[in-house]
């Protein structure tokens, strides 16, 4: 638990400027890499992908053992969310990463999902 409670605001003391890590790329399409888009490393046929930046490699490593949400990748790496989204987008473009975006909101889909959520909560917490 952090000392000061919630909603901390501070100026980050980055060693590397964010635009260096992202190679000046722009933010990807929000739907493709939303906070809760699930990502995992694509199968690599046993060989390591070449020519990745250290950050790309680091994020790919984290995604290599299963699915994580984009927010979780940011949380575990402590990189700013915007940076994580850009690097993940580059990895996706390069075929190194598979993404599973959330289903777009629609009434019917919502209803099924909400039922699933409700049943899940009951199962889990009684």
């Amino acid at each position, binding site marked *: 638990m952090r000392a000061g409670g919630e909603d901390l605001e501070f*100026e980050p003391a980055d060693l590397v400027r964010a635009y260096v890590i992202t190679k000046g790329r722009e933010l990807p399409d929000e739907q493709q890499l939303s*906070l809760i888009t699930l990502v995992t490393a694509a199968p690599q046929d046993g060989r390591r992908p070449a020519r990745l930046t250290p950050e790309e490699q680091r994020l790919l490593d984290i995604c290599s053992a299963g699915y994580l949400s984009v927010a979780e990748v940011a949380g575990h790496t402590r990189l700013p969310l915007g940076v994580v989204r850009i690097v993940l987008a580059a990895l996706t473009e390069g075929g190194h990463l598979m993404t599973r975006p959330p289903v777009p909101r629609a009434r019917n889909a919502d209803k099924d999902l909400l039922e699933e959520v409700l*049943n899940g909560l009951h199962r889990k917490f009684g």
Partner: protein
Amino acid sequence: MGFTASSDDRLTTDDYVSGGAAQTAVKILVVGHFAVGKTTFIGSISEIEPLSTEETMTQAAEAVDDLKGVRGKTTTTVALDFGRLTLSERVVLYLFGTPGQTRFVQMWEDMARGALGALILVDPERLADSFPVIDLIEQYGLDYAIAVNHFDGNPERAERALREALDLLDETPVVTCDARNEKSSAAALTTLVRYLLDRAS
């Protein structure tokens, strides 16, 4: 400042979403004013140690292309705390604790987009502090329930006063909860989801 000391990126199997490729991720926002208990709430029911991620906000008015980065550049870092609940082999629920500051428009758009709904935590002693958050949630068109944290007193009278003070619709659920308690937090969340389901039917 975070919850985990895993700056070395080593994750265990439990960190990953079980069910992987078959999972659909959904999110619910847990919102409220400063120090109302959002992080505590999420921590009490999350299956993972709550994580924190930062979004860097640049003030739009000062978005000057100044590569020296010294003059007139104002950035603020907003921390989002979140947790996860794997509810079945098909659905994994993320809970995002969202700060109530109205000025973070971009962040709010990110957060609200695709959210199933919002649970608004309120402190009965600081009701006025909840107005801006409720306004934002309504502005983004999210359905919500109110969870009264730090509750200590007569529930019925409190609910009536609170409904009036917050100008709630009759159907908006109001529950009391102790954000430190897993069952109590889960009950509040269940109330919200049942309401969302009613609204979707």
